[in-house]
């Protein structure tokens, strides 16, 4: 009864402060501001609000908010017709992506990775809510693994981001926050990929994405195409048993500049002022090195059942040199032409962790380019 009376009072007020502001932690330097004073009668913003939900954000969180702010600015301005014409040409002629084109596409994916207690979920929900607040009538989705994971984002939104005067939340089975400006923030299960094929959204965020199938992500991304939006992926590095190993591949592709229109922000838990580093360090003695590096430090390492269990593709891999590949000539010069030598295979037989096999190519040595017996491994 009391909540109904409160709701009635809220709805009688014509104006409502509907504004979110991000500032730097400690210094308070403003970073971005969304929304304003909402007029319920005119159903429009009428200037700035005198009060805001103010969020102090740290290190990498600032980088993510600036990326979102830049994207929203471009979103308001709309796409450049020349860029659209160029993209159509590339699709029709099936041309390859290049770095120049990637820069023209804008942002369509934002990956937020890091260890536990780094603030990824809050950051993702803050971006989704900022869009829902700034753009009246917008629809945004939060997608979780099975529905039992809905509680975490719901609590973050209701307890940390949006005051109760801003929305009505109907719980099961819609799990939707209906904002006063007509926007909707929908919480969805990503357990069944097909359930994400229906509907449209401007922004889609995946929480705990390392536990969500790649098919679910693909379908959820499709929902943003009409509005020209983007998707946010908040994930811990996948470990053995997680079905979302695509997150590892995607983050690595971005680090290697091989995934156009995607951004990757590493959210370091050590920079989270609300996480006690003593408690993080205390976890170390009860973990394997791999678990420590991935689950606490947030490093994107290969799964632990691989031989190269500390291999980080983003750090340890680089494009091959442009000196010319001479694998066959090199091996023929050394071994004769008894076989068609294509690769050099190196085997390291060891008892622990497992036998390692490497497949190598030989590149021309620029110091002796004419000598087939000289090469770079």
């Amino acid at each position, binding site marked *: 009864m*009391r*909540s109904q009376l*409160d709701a009635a009072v809220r709805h009688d007020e014509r104006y409502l*402060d509907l*504004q979110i*502001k991000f500032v730097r932690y400690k210094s*308070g*330097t*403003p*970073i*971005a*501001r*969304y*929304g*304003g004073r909402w007029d319920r009668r005119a159903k429009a*913003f009428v200037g*700035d*609000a*005198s*009060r*805001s*939900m*103010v969020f102090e954000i740290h290190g990498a969180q600032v980088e993510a908010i600036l990326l979102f*702010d830049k994207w*929203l*600015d471009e*979103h*308001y301005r*709309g*796409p450049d017709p020349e860029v*659209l014409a160029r993209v159509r040409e590339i699709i029709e002629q099936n041309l390859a992506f290049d770095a120049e084109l990637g820069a023209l596409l804008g942002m369509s994916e934002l990956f937020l990775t890091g260890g536990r207690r780094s603030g990824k979920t809050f950051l993702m929900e803050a971006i989704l809510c900022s869009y829902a607040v*700034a*753009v*009246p*009538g917008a629809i945004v989705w939060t997608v979780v693994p*099975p*529905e*039992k994971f*809905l509680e975490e984002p719901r609590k973050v939104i*209701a*307890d*940390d*981001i*949006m*005051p*109760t*005067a801003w929305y009505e939340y109907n*719980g*099961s*089975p819609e799990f939707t926050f209906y904002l006063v400006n007509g926007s909707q923030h929908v919480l969805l*299960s990503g*357990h*069944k990929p097909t359930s994400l094929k229906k509907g449209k959204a401007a922004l889609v965020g995946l929480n705990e994405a390392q536990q969500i199938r790649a098919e679910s992500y693909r379908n959820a991304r499709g929902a943003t195409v009409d509005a*020209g939006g983007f998707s946010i992926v908040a994930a811990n590095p996948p470990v053995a048993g997680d079905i979302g190993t695509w997150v590892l591949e995607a983050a690595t592709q971005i680090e290697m500049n091989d995934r156009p229109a995607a951004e990757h922000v590493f959210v370091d838990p050590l920079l989270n002022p609300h996480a006690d580093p003593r408690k993080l360090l205390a976890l170390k003695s009860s973990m394997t090195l791999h678990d420590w590096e991935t689950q606490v430090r947030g490093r994107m390492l290969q799964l632990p059942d691989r031989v190269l269990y500390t291999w980080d593709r983003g750090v340890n891999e680089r494009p091959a040199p442009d000196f010319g590949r001479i694998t066959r000539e090199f091996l023929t010069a050394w071994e004769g032409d008894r076989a068609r030598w294509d690769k050099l295979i190196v085997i390291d037989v060891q008892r622990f962790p497992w036998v390692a096999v490497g497949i190598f190519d030989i590149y021309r040595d620029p110091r002796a380019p004419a000598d087939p017996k000289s090469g770079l491994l």
Partner: protein
Amino acid sequence: MAKRTSTRRSAARRSRAPAKRSPPAPAKRSLRERIQQQLGDTPIDDSLAAATWMQRALAVVASDVVDSELDDDKKRSEILKIADRMAKLRDIDRLHQAEQTLRGARAQQEEARPGPQMTDDATSLDTAAGEVPTRRGRPPRRALS
């Protein structure tokens, strides 16, 4: 004479008839009654217990089908239908949704939480690096071709 005999027979038939019949078989109880006897009433205040109760009830139905005089193909078809319904009951999303529905109803009766509080925003957003604009409003709808 004939009349007397006839009368006597008739009387005898009347008196002996009940003795010749087997005692009346107890009426077969309905499926609903048998399930209630075996499993008790349907739990209505706990959705997860209700789902478990439904699974056990379906097992009773399945045993009925196995003992029935249906031909094998029909039995197989009916058992597959029951198995399908049991699988749906075990679906994690459906179970969770049922539980959430119950929790949602309870939560609505509880006092609403206050939520986060707003703070005065009288500070200027003019920074040394330049003004931070406030972004709001619908993006313009543009034809893309």
